[in-house]
């Protein structure tokens, strides 16, 4: 019964994979009109010596480490707060999950309005707070800030997801455990740090790995907010690969970069599977 699905998946994933693999060893520049030419591993050498590739990798790395880290920390904090209340928690979670569910492109548009230098509510907020000393800041056009503005859009979308995920983990902790900690004289923060967080670790790890894979592919928000600019300071690896493939039509090079990303993702996916088995095996939730 798995046959039809596996056959279709083979068709729509193995074909692209093999095709990408084949393209990695050719030089095929559509703009020059020359036919594809075998060049061995030169495309990979080009990637590893291309400063723009490394710049994109660095930006993506920043988004992954700082952005996903922030989501994990804020999400866990939010979950601990949500766990303290009883009334209206369900409604609150539903409302908080709206950012997670909407399309990244739409989220990008919302933040374009919010970050707007002349008419945006964010600058207005800062102007009011600082009594008019701070106004008209161009968040998306300022090199030191633009990447963080992109990051915040992703953090805004996915922190609630982390919170609801961690909350699910929290609710699965047997209350006897927390009572035992209390009987043993643990303070509130000791219970959180020594009992609750270690139990939650596998769940937080699962969420972090999922977000890591998604953020590594971050494209929509960049496209909508900055187009990789100013300069290349917000260019992610997915965005740079898209430019090489569909703007500069450098097909072999695009394939090589795509292949490198595939390797990274596969390694992370393997870790995800490992933790998924642990979590489902009854270690935690």
């Amino acid at each position: 019964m798995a046959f039809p699905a596996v056959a279709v998946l083979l068709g729509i994933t193995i074909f692209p994979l093999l095709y990408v693999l084949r393209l990695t060893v050719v030089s095929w520049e559509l703009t020059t009109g020359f036919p594809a030419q075998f060049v061995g591993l030169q495309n990979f050498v080009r990637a590893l010596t291309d400063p723009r590739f490394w710049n994109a990798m660095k930006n993506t790395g920043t988004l992954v480490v700082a952005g996903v880290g922030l989501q994990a920390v804020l999400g866990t904090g939010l979950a601990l707060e949500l766990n303290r209340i009883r009334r209206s928690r369900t409604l609150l979670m539903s409302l908080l999950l709206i950012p997670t569910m909407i399309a990244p492109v739409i989220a990008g548009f919302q933040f374009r309005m919010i970050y707007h230098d002349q008419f945006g509510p964010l600058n207005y907020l800062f102007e009011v707070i600082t009594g008019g000393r701070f106004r008209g800041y161009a968040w998306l056009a300022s090199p030191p800030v633009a990447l963080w503005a992109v990051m915040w859009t992703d953090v805004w979308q996915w922190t609630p997801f982390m919170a609801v995920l961690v909350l699910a983990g929290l609710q699965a902790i047997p209350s006897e455990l927390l009572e035992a900690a209390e009987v043993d004289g643990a303070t509130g923060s000791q219970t959180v740090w020594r009992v609750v967080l270690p139990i939650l670790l596998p769940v937080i790890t699962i969420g972090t790995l999922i977000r890591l894979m998604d953020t590594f592919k971050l494209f929509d928000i960049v496209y909508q907010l900055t187009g990789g600019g100013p300069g290349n300071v917000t260019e992610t690896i997915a965005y740079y690969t898209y430019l090489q493939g569909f703007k500069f039509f450098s097909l072999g090079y695009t394939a090589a970069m795509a292949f490198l990303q595939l390797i990274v993702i596969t390694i992370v996916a393997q870790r995800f599977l490992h933790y998924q088995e642990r979590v489902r095996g009854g270690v935690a939730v």
Partner: protein
Amino acid sequence: MKRHSRARRVLGAVILATALAIFLFPVVWMFLTSFKSEAEFFSYPPVFIPKSFSLVNYLNAMRFPPDGRGGLQGVRDSLIVSSGSMAVSLLLGAPAAYSFARYRTGGPNLSFWVLSTRMFPPVASALPLFLLFRSLHLLDTHLGLIIANTVFNLPFAIWLLKGFFEDLPAELEEAALVDGATIFNAFRRIALPLVAPGLVVTALLSFIFTWNEFMFALLFTRSDVRTLTIIVPSLVGGHEILWGEIAAVGVVAIIPNVLLALLLQRYLVRGLTLGAVKG
């Protein structure tokens, strides 16, 4: 649990209220902007509540293309592509998920491979799919976009449904098999109705993933097919930004997402973690 002091409870309420404000403000701002007049969104200090809630932005944004960028076409195309990919993923995915769950078809390697196709960077499959679609004349068609989205939705459906099937006790189907039912009938008449909630969750999430999808829609379509996610960025840019119109398209575009967040809340964790964590 310890009884919380009054001060701590107030602090908690403040934290949650602040979080709610932060996470809802951009959505509310878009909603309000969709009703503003041109003078209102180009004013400083910003206008928060528009003077009149006029629908003029909606009417402008939704008009069917004289200029090829009408929001109604976006609604139509997003609906077609999202439902199409959802249907294909469920039809193919449910039997496959059942077979993985009950008979461990292909062992762990096959299921890992299925999962890893879900994790594929879209930019990696975009180039070969583009060249393939070009030679098959599938660019700028609903079918092409449905196929491209199925690359991600089918493994998602298989993986999520597999978990739902694994949660079912096997005894019922075993009894049916003993009574002479075929494996397919045991699946269709017994297991499938029992995972109905799982099917609904999987269907709705597959729908939303395609609804939100951007890169394939950007690369594989031009004018005949234009999903809502394409229309929004295509209106942004140039010299003038049509804030009101884009916001109106945006509000229409997030209706299914908001409904899903409100209705499916308990299942979203499970869906978004591919079944790893049950909410």
